[in-house]
């Protein structure tokens, strides 16, 4: 069949002219006894879940905080994790989630015409506020993405510190890229590359299912790989958790430095007491710190340099830029065949020049943004180096405030906790009696 683009002239009442009617509309007949219906479109489904979602979030966050900080029950936390996985994950199919909401917030900040539903605002802000006071209890049991990884983290291996620290930079870079792409209305990459939402929906593209599946497989040995090395919202939570007022503790009262908890954490978040440094060592440490501080501008400038090279690839996220590129390629005979996009563009009677102008503007904007992204990456690296050169003295085994997700696995490793629970009896007094 030959495709002919019909030039639609309006209403041609007249005889039925099959075949010859490419240029005109065939008139709707005048029926003697039949009125021509008007099809109705479906009314929008009312979003009755908004209130339920918000209440579920508030209740789950409150419960998670209580279970992690007050009642210290890993079992109940685990049950809550399952419940949240069932509700936020499988029932609500992973939407709305605070991780993705980051992008909506970025877009709403940048674009006044984009309106954010209240649910999204609450989902974005509430976990942040909770984290500011109680640490990452959202990660502990509420987040469905964390939950699905929590279930498979059964056999953990220790990630080497250098690898852990370097991969730990990725979430900040991801966050920067996601915010820039969302704020410019280009793409929502957090949603597009959400590894587990395809599982929650029991439906998705093969690459995303494979990505999610392999993350879970890795997650058996390296606890919560998405949370630790990708999650952009987790990156924000890490920073806030550092300043939290209260936080989940390994031991209910005083650490006796028995070292039993050292291997408890699958997420590498337990910090051991520091060894006092010799004078030479501490002088070296101080020199490192000064260097790291002095190098901050160098990293940022280097990042801008790197970013200036990334303008082109960043621009190619935008379909308008791709369209203009394809149009150019076709114009100069570089493209083998036309695409649907260029066909549609031409059949709409638009001039390629129009597309070039749009693409040019977008490319210029993306060059600027890429420099900002580069500066952000440089800053992230620089801050990490400063942070690594800082050493704080620790006398006890404590949870690393930014790394700890308050999952409660370490509670029962602590003998003090076992005494508290009455599982074992306190023999410390008897031991000290016998000692001398």
């Amino acid at each position, binding site marked *: 069949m030959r495709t002919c683009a019909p030039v639609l002239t*309006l209403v041609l009442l007249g005889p039925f002219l099959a075949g010859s009617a490419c240029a005109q509309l065939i008139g709707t007949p005048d029926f003697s006894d039949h009125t021509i219906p008007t099809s109705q479109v479906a009314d929008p489904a009312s979003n009755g879940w908004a209130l339920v979602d918000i209440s579920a979030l508030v209740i789950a966050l409150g419960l998670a905080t209580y279970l992690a900080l007050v009642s210290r029950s890993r079992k109940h936390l685990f049950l809550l994790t399952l419940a949240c996985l069932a509700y936020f994950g499988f029932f609500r199919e992973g939407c709305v989630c605070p991780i993705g909401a980051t992008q909506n917030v970025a877009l709403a900040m940048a674009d006044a015409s984009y*309106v954010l539903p209240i649910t999204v605002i609450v989902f974005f802000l509430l976990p942040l506020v909770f984290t500011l006071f109680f640490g990452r209890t959202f990660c502990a049991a509420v987040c469905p993405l964390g939950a699905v990884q929590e279930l498979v983290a059964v056999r953990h291996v220790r990630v080497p510190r250098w690898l852990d620290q370097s991969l730990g930079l990725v979430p900040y870079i991801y966050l920067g890229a996601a915010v820039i792409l969302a704020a410019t209305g280009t793409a929502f990459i957090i949603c597009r590359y959400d590894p587990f939402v395809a599982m929650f929906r029991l439906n998705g593209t093969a690459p995303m299912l494979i990505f999610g599946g392999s993350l879970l497989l890795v997650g058996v040995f390296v606890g919560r790989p998405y949370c630790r090395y990708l999650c952009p919202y987790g990156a924000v939570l890490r920073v806030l958790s550092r*300043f939290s007022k209260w936080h989940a503790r390994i031991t209910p009262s005083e650490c006796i430095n028995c070292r039993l908890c050292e291997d408890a954490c699958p997420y590498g978040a337990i910090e051991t007491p520091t060894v006092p440094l010799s004078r030479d060592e501490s002088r070296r440490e101080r020199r490192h710190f000064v260097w790291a501080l002095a190098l901050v501008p160098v990293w940022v400038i280097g990042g801008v340099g790197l970013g200036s090279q990334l303008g082109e690839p960043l621009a190619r996220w935008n379909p308008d830029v791709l369209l203009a590129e394809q149009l150019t390629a076709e114009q100069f005979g570089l493209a083998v065949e036309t695409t649907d996009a260029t066909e549609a563009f031409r059949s709409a009677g638009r001039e390629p020049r129009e597309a070039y102008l749009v693409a040019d503007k977008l490319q210029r904007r993306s060059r600027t943004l890429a420099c900002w992204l580069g500066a952000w990456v440089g800053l992230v690296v620089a801050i990490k180096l400063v942070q690594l050169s800082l050493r704080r003295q620790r006398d006890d085994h404590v949870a690393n405030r930014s790394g700890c997700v308050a999952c409660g696995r370490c509670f029962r490793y602590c003998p003090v906790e076992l005494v508290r629970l009455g599982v074992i009896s306190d023999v410390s007094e008897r031991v000290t009696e016998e000692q001398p």
Partner: protein
Amino acid sequence: MNDQPVKNDRREFIQDGLRVAGLVTLGAAGGFLVGRQGEAEETVWQLDPNKCIACKNCATHCVLDESAVKCVQFFDMCGYCDICTGYFDPNYRELNTAAENQMCPTGAIRRTFIEEKAGQKFFEYTIDADACVGCGKCVKGCALMNGSFYLQVSHDRCLNCNECAIAVSCPTQAFDRLPANRPYRLKSPALALLKRKVKHPSHQDARDLLSQVYDP
């Protein structure tokens, strides 16, 4: 030994300060976002049938098992043809309603005889939205003639994802966001026809449709 509590006090003081600063920032962000609510309307995804080329992506790229995109028939643009290029497969064996002769893979188009006039038979073609999968085969077929079939995101089904998966894959960028109280579109000739139709007092259904249609 003696300065330990002082040091801790100082640390706590700084942390308290940072916490308050964080809280204020979050509160300000929340207030700003809530304050912006009044400035514009909420929006939902819709496709522009004037740009649509019926490429079939709508049927396969939606995150729902059964796509939120459905075919709609705009009857006032339909020729009520006997040999409908949207209904019959180009390689039909016979001109009857047998499945192998139909364009629609799910048999979602109902063909009803209306009238015979001057030797011409006229049929009405109605879409069964429950059976439609939004593949747009009929839309492509109908485009050869009047183009009264067109695809639309059906808002009783659409989840209103952050980033519509079909929009990402749409070759002609036909998807964008419309105000939620007018979430549907018509082809431009159809819109003109509908505007004429609503003037007639008996056409309440036409007024209902027009009230839902976005008019640029």
